[in-house]
């Protein structure tokens, strides 16, 4: 009886500390008694509060870093524009020079537009403003759309995209998944030689439907399989190809919001990225 009172008082003290904003350590002994179990639950609660607070802190830091990165990325094309605008303003510039300046400014403007659009998509995805609206649709249609979107660029480079997909219905958001797949194709085209191939396959397994995009391009180094999905990461083999390290990151985010996952595999030659989507409805 006395022991129990002591234990209850200890619980009460810990709750008091928790209310006072302290975190609890795991000092107490684990025993197979009710007070010990409640003690354990209070500590879990404390951990949960602490975990949440730390997560919020980390997210704040992330946002700070992101803003700094955005400013940094925008600075280059803006500086270019400034230079060419100055040149345009000079009176003795020839018609040819003027034309050159205008094209350069247009290119910079294109870069800024691309960046802002990517950032807006990223922000919408991250703040979960965009709800992935899953509908049971034919995956093949979504894949065909993405391939169609990639057509201009693929024809320009003479890259043939081959699709092999059965008529499978999968719960997904056609717009967002379409964008995820388009990003994979865009990435593959960027790092492939002229006149090569990209294979797109969709297969149904027990738990997930797998969409595979495989190219025969420059590929990645060992150990980069997970890194390439990180925000702003550029592959170690990348030399001349332009990019911001956003495409694969966005693809992964979209897939995660579908309750699925992505997996990259080194091929010789090239890279294979597999997207796994859960077969049935899945809450997130």
């Amino acid at each position, binding site marked *: 009886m006395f022991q129990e009172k002591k234990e209850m008082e200890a619980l009460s003290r810990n709750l008091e500390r928790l209310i006072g904003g302290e975190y609890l350590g795991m000092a107490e002994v684990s025993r197979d008694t009710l007070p010990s*179990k409640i003690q*354990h639950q209070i500590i*879990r609660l404390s951990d949960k509060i602490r975990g949440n607070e730390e997560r919020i802190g980390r997210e704040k830091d992330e946002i700070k870093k992101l803003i700094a990165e955005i400013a940094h990325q925008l600075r280059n094309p803006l500086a270019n524009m400034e230079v060419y605008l100055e040149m345009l303003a000079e009176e003795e510039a020839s018609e040819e020079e003027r034309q050159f300046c205008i094209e350069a400014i247009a290119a910079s403007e294109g870069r800024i537009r691309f960046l802002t659009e990517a950032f807006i998509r990223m922000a919408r995805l991250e703040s979960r403003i965009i709800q992935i609206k899953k509908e049971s649709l034919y995956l093949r249609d979504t894949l065909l759309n993405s391939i169609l979107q990639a057509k201009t660029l693929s024809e320009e480079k003479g890259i043939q995209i081959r699709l092999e997909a059965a008529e499978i219905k999968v719960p997904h958001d056609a717009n967002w998944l379409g964008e995820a797949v388009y990003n994979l194709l865009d990435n593959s085209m960027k790092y492939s030689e002229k006149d090569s191939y990209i294979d797109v396959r969709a297969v149904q397994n027990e738990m997930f439907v797998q969409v595979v995009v495989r190219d025969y391009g420059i590929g990645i180094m060992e150990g980069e399989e997970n890194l390439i999905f990180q925000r702003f990461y550029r592959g170690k083999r990348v030399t001349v190809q332009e990019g911001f390290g956003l495409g694969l990151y966005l693809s992964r985010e979209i897939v995660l919001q579908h309750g699925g996952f992505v*997996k990259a595999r080194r091929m010789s030659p090239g890279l294979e990225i597999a997207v796994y989507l859960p077969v049935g409805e899945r809450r997130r």
Partner: protein
Amino acid sequence: MEVLRTKGLKKIYNTPSSQIRALDGIDISVEEGEFIAIVGSSGSGKTTLLNMLGGLDNPTEGEIIVRGKNLTDMDSEELTVFRRRNIGFVFQNYNLMPILNVHENMTLPLKLDGLGEDRNFLEQIIESLKLKEKLYSMPNTLSGGQQQRVAIARALVARPAVILADEPTGNLDSKTGTEVIGLLKTSAIQFNQTILVVTHNEDIAQMADRIIRIEDGKVSGGGHEE
């Protein structure tokens, strides 16, 4: 938040002629919500390490701190209760109770701790692991992949601080193995669960957020989050 840490962890076996250092000073640190692969060739000490993290084996030297509490200080009764509340296991051979159905197997850890079922949470897990149709089936009627899904569900229901999985795909074909690891990965995100998977399969390890490499009883890479 740090969930798990080891300090100078050693396991030394004395034989009449020599000393075998299965673990030779392991320092690792794991943050809440991380999905980590522990990789090493057979005999590297990775399974010994996992067993120690789960309190299934005692170190010769060093500390194992799970959520701020040192496992090596506990007596066996305390350790049993602590383990049940804080650590979930997933084994290569599933270790389901053959006389219990899927639902009973899943909720066994709760029953052992005298806890009620959190219906809503249970339903989320059942849905995520696609076990709805199999709830009242017996383990021996399920495929390997299905049995492992039940084992994962069982590990998740008690909301342990850490889930330790020892070669969870060892008995599965590679396609099913990838799916099972994918489920662990998506569960880690969905339920903010910390998961450590021991594997010798590089392809599977590549799916983790971080890879800890063990060689000859030492960490050769990835011991701490940078």
